[in-house]
């Protein structure tokens, strides 16, 4: 069975799906990703589906589930790079992936996560070392 690699970049987990997803691969990915979120304490997950030609209802539900699960673990999920044909198919199937945030490509996905992250990062700095409060604002926001 093929496995999808989960890469950690700073505070974010990046999953780029390059293989044909069957149901087993999807379930394995779901398990791997959940474990990695807990292990690394990541606050963002980016799932890149640029290479996916087909997203069926099962994969669609998997994406929704991953988003819900990671939200429980305090990580925001962004699905990026969906192809036009895939988007049309999903809409025709009536799957609008509720609760999943989307972006055009990985870069914009990172931007989207960065925009939601600062408040949280600041909060950590505020409590951890009050003295350096001024320095921490807007600098190294994503490190924890």
């Amino acid at each position, binding site marked *: 069975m093929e496995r999808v690699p989960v890469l950690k970049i700073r505070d974010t987990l990046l999953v780029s799906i390059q293989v044909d997803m069957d149901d087993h691969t999807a379930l394995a990915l779901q398990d791997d990703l959940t474990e990695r979120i807990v292990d690394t304490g990541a606050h963002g997950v980016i799932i890149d589906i640029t290479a996916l030609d087909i997203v069926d209802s099962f994969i669609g539900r998997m994406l929704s589930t991953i988003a819900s699960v990671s939200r429980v673990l305090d990580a925001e999920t962004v699905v990026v790079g969906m192809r*036009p044909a*895939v988007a*049309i198919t999903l809409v025709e199937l009536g799957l609008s992936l509720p609760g999943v945030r989307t972006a*055009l490509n990985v870069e914009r996905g990172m931007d989207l996560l960065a925009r939601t992250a600062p408040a949280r990062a600041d909060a950590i700095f505020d409590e951890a070392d009050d003295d350096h409060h001024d320095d921490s604002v807007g600098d190294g926001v994503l490190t924890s």
Partner: protein
Amino acid sequence: MLNAGSSARFAQLLTDQQDQLLKRWATLSLRGGRGRATEAELVAQITDLHAALLSALRADAETDLQAEEAAELRATLAELSGTRARRGFTPGETASTILSLKDAVFEGLDGADSTVLSDFVNFSRFVDELALFTFETYVQTREEVIVEQNHQLLELSTPVIKLWDGVLAVPLVGTLDSARSQVVMESLLQALVDTGSAYAILDITGVPAVDTQVAQHILKTVMAARLMGAECIISGIRPQIAQTVVSLGIEFGDIVTKASLADALLHTLRASGSDVVRRTRRAS
């Protein structure tokens, strides 16, 4: 279908009385054509038809419109009918041009013996076949024209415009049916990928009426764009349409709607972090 004997005798008649026949035919069909075609044009068309008819009839076997020898006749008829269809003639006018051949031939018949009568009945049946053929060609040509126009309409009506860096606009003009909304959706989504735009504005100023069906198509397009990570804004909602939408109970949910394209552009600019500032000129 015209049997061999009648076929040969009519070929003879058409050759012998060529000039008088053509003249009578032209006069008769001019009367039927209600003056839409000029006389010279009509005479040219009739002469062509006469020649084609002769070439089809000359064979000393029976004459069949579907046979290979009649190919030229069919082509001439098709051309006549096709050009007339494109110029807006009615199929009745075209058919009556062909049918007046019967009267023209009838006037040229002499005597009343039984062969002439049965020949004429045979011949007029054949002419009816010709007229029917032009009718079919006419319908076919019109069908082609309609299909052609449909294609042009689809291409014409769905431009995707780049309004600003990262902002696309689709001005929708005309009624949205499922075929058109499919084209709109595909071209918009492709343009989103190509330009990397994060915002798209669907302007429905040119949509004459919004019913549940049209709203459904618009919502689908917005959802698809969202799945790809772009935000859609609906603009150009006329007062009448706003009232219809509300009375039909259509919910746009959390989709941003604006009254005008200008408002929508301003919204996207603000959302993407740009501000529009009006410069006030200081009195010097």
